């Protein structure tokens, strides 16, 4: 023990400490002299907006990145962690946002993957026994022989956690673990994490959700733009004070919503059925109607058919049966180009793969899909003047952080990429906007702006279909909330009467009276 921290009351000795940890990337400082420590048996939240340097910090601890300066102390001794295997040898485990599992292998095989084994043979028998023991200890129902892709996302996360525990970690880092979970699954995760910490495991819990900090942590460290703002005990905090530390100013949690009379039906789905890429039916008879001046929120955990329904609506996936009507005219079976030309704009969930051309400049990306339409084309040529002024405008109103509109898009951060997509789609003057997770990865301040834009569009008569996993977002914006579960709409609730618990249960597939 070199020093004891007055904040770490009631906890064991300090397990890991960083002093002045700094990491630069081209053009940004991801971590700026961060001092941080975590005690034995503590759950320590790392809170910050996207791009505040949380993940970079964690990945420096896990050996993915080498810090430019500063030092890491493990049990009081200076260590150099140059690779994840170094980290695992010390006893540090990490569960990433994107799971690192082999989809076609079993739970057992995934857990044994990459372990240092003595001798040439795998000792399956003892591994199986250890996994069963760990599952029982934390009350997780896990079949070691289940194949990964058959498991739900929540279960896959448990595989990742078990894998770390199997390695005998003393410090477990979880990077935004609840992003893929239902509220109920999150609750369960929290209670198990608390149990683990009582048994002496230290946990670094990365999040940008204030509720989770309050629910799970012993202490919280807030990062903003790579700098540590403060470390505080969780019983001393309020949501408002945390938000202020995180954003650097007061945050309004609700945007002003005017009452608007909804208009004619715009987009009608009648018994829509389709299959996913594996050929399994994943949208199973959806009837929904989106009206003018309406925001229809579709709540649900990822992977319940939202992506496929979205792709049907934009003409990228074939219907097996049913109809989609726009203004009473069928659009199902039409090409994505002709659907788009009828005034349907869309924000896809995966901006990098589906929304942007990363090698293009910002200006070029701003007209993707409109390059043949009027102001942007003059005769046979692109009209650079119109393109540039449109791009400048979008860049200004969405506060896209880039040197110029001729900057290559691939160099932007996730939030800024999303802003480019939003500026393009909203700027195309649509009559219907389909948005799949439109604010994922955005800063609180920009989310506020996007929400205002959505409400502004709504008051102009646009109908918006909003797919979101973020219940707060759904509740903030929607006039009507439809809950999707395993490809079916379980219920459509008027936003006035919606309550969080009921929607949460529906998202988990529990209907009233069951």
């Amino acid at each position, binding site marked *: 023990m070199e020093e004891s921290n007055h904040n770490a009351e009631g906890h064991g000795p300090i397990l890991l400490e960083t002093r002045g940890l700094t990491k630069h990337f*081209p053009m940004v400082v991801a971590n700026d002299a961060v001092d941080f420590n975590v005690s034995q048996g503590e759950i320590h939240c790392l809170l910050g907006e996207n791009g505040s340097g949380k993940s970079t910090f964690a990945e420096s601890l896990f050996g993915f990145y*080498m810090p*430019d*300066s*500063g*030092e*890491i102390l493990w049990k009081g001794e*200076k*260590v*150099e962690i*140059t690779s994840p295997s170094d980290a695992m040898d010390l006893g540090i485990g990490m569960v990433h946002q994107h799971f690192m599992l082999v989809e076609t292998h079993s739970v057992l095989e995934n857990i044994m993957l990459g372990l240092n084994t003595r001798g040439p043979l795998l000792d399956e028998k003892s591994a199986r026994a250890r996994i069963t023991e760990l599952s029982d200890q934390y009350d997780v129902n896990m079949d070691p022989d289940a194949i990964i892709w058959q498991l739900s996302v929540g279960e896959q996360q448990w595989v990742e956690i078990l894998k770390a525990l199997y390695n005998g970690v003393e410090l477990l880092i979880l990077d935004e673990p609840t992003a893929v979970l239902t509220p109920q699954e999150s609750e369960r995760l929290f209670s198990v994490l608390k149990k683990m910490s009582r048994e002496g495991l230290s946990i670094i819990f990365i999040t940008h959700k204030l509720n989770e900090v309050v629910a799970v942590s012993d202490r919280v460290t807030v990062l903003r733009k790579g700098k540590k703002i403060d470390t505080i005990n969780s019983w001393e905090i309020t949501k408002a004070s945390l938000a202020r530390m995180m954003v650097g100013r007061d945050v309004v949690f609700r945007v002003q919503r005017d009452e608007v009379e909804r208009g004619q039906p715009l987009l009608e789905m009648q018994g829509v059925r389709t299959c996913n890429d594996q050929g399994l039916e994943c949208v199973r008879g959806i009837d929904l109607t989106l009206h003018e001046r309406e925001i229809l929120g579709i709540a649900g955990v990822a992977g319940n058919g939202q992506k496929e329904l979205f792709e049907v609506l*934009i*003409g*990228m996936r074939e219907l097996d049966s049913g109809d989609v009507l726009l203004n009473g005219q069928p659009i199902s079976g039409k*090409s*994505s*180009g*002709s*659907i*788009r*030309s009828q005034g349907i704009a*869309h924000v*896809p969930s995966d901006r990098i*793969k*589906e*929304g*942007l*051309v*990363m*090698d*293009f400049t910002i200006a*070029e990306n701003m007209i*993707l*899909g409109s*390059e*043949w339409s009027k102001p*942007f*084309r003059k005769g*046979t*040529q*692109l009209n650079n003047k119109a393109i540039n002024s449109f791009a400048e405008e979008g860049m200004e109103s969405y506060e896209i952080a880039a040197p110029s509109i001729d900057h290559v898009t691939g*160099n932007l951060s996730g939030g800024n990429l999303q802003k480019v997509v939003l500026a393009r789609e909203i700027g195309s003057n649509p009559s219907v906007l389909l948005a799949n997770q439109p604010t994922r990865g955005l800063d609180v301040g920009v989310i506020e702006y996007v929400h205002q834009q959505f409400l502004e569009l709504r008051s102009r008569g646009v109908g918006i279909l909003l797919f979101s996993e973020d219940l707060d977002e759904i509740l903030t914006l929607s006039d009507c909330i439809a809950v999707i579960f395993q490809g079916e709409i379980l219920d459509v609730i008027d936003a006035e009467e919606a309550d969080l618990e009921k929607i949460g249960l529906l998202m988990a597939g529990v209907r009233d009276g069951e």
Partner: protein
Amino acid sequence: MMLKALRLEIVKVRDVHWGIQVILVILGILAAFFVSGWFIALSGGNPAEAFAAIFRGAFGEPRKVYDTLMRATPLIFTGLATVIAFRAKIWSIGQEGQLYAGAMLAYTLYRIFQPMLDRPLLLLVVVLGGFLGGGLLGLLAGWLKARFNVDIIISTVLLNYIVTTMLLFLLYDHKYWMGAETYYPRTDTITKDAWFPIIFEDARLHMGFLIAVGFAITVYWVLKRTPYGYDLRAMGSNPVATMFKGIDVNKLIMVTMFISGGLAGMAGSGEVFGVHHNVNMAVSAGYGYTGIIVAMVSELNPLVVILVSIFFGAIINGSVVMATQTGIHTSIIFVIQAFVLLAILISRALMSYRIRRVPHAG
């Protein structure tokens, strides 16, 4: 790991000053010549003498320069054909077959229209025939891709064989194209009214070179300034996003393969009506494949294709003088070409990284 011990790390570099890029490319080419020279020495020749002979043969007198440009002409076309396909990440290697298809359709049209058309019209028909012949063959590969998802690499390679074998069949029988007064597999000499006009007297440089330069500028403009070029680049970089935004990718593949094939076909009609004045199995000296190297060395930039084609044309042209003066076989030019490509690719790869000291690691 060794680097880490030395407190060094490799980082990606985004922007390299263009001056440094030019210097690196020149160093790369010098290195390529150095290694090629070693090969010449191995085969018993004197490298300095050989390179001097190549240079004299390529640029020694005005007529030699014109000949170099003539050699560059088909390379510009096949290079451009590669540029336009590769920019869209369509890995077509059918330029050789498309070149022959262009030559064959142009020759067919010549046989039909020669008796009835004046020289200017006949030339127009022959030029268009070259484009159309190569273009249709490219379109076939594009259609197979769009309709049945047949891999472009496979279909274009196989079509290369089919087309050249078909030509062989036609050239080996007097019933078809084999010339009346010859027992070699080649056609009779084309009548002079269908020959491409010569640009300078007493040299073999024909109007095809001017057309090629015109096309290079056009391709540059199309890629940079038109919605079609925009779509093509978008598809090359991210086909999924391109589809999501409503662009018909299948149509785009077919159009692009048609244009790419057409450009390669122009090389064929140029060689037949500008250089050989008959159709034979040696109309292309591997120009279709060399065009791929030209395009890669040019970094898929249509204007740079002109310069690189002239450079490669010079080596081809100069090698004839080298062979007669030093006795070294002309096949050494393929060695030089290959090393130039390797040197450029390596210097490219090195350019995007640099080694730097790790400040206070740990």
